[in-house]
């Protein structure tokens, strides 16, 4: 997992946003199931974030820190032939 926490400055107009962190599919064990991410949603109570990755045929979820917004990887449901089906060509409803 790669995790960065920096304040950013950009050329041109500076938008009122601060980059907090990112979670990327990597060679390490976690997080996994993020290849080809297409969608992201936050639960109505703000406690979890869900994303879906087309290339991995996965739905991945994180817990969300209600104060900082930072995420912690929890689990990925993977489409596996003969075990769990129905995630290829997914569409994650907002």
């Amino acid at each position, binding site marked *: 997992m790669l995790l960065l926490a920096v304040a950013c400055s950009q050329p041109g107009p500076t938008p009122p*946003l*601060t980059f*907090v962190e*990112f979670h990327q599919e990597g060679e390490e064990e976690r997080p996994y199931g993020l290849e080809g991410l297409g969608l992201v949603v936050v639960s109505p109570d703000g406690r979890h974030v869900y994303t879906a990755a087309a290339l991995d045929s996965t739905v991945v979820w994180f817990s969300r820190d209600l104060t900082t917004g930072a995420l912690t990887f929890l689990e990925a449901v993977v489409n596996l032939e003969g075990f769990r089906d129905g995630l290829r060509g997914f569409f994650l409803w907002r």
Partner: protein
Amino acid sequence: MSPDGNHVYVAAGFDDAVTVFSRNKRTGALTFVETIKDGVGGVDGLEFAGSVVVSPDGSRGYVAGTDDNALAVFQRDPTTGVLTFLGALKDGKGGVDGLDVVTAVTLSPGGRNVYTAASSDHAIAVFGVSE
């Protein structure tokens, strides 16, 4: 759609644009308001715009610019729905990462955080909203 239901926002990838419509709440009919295009009037970060959201308080709009690897931010006029460009964060600039081919953007329920999904970076990125 804006939280008050008065405006609809469309991210148009092939036009590198966001188009704004006003909405008749009774009939649901849409009326064209404006189109904001990448590279016009100083606007940046809208190449192949893939997703757009409006903050819960209706004051801002956020656009995922897929081919710009960018997250563009707009001020929103709550009465007219018109958007004013505030700036864009781009992958690989100013310490920002996780936006390579960003396809989706969403907000936390209170609007304090912005989350993006990027299909080439295979990453989810987190941003904090400042005043």
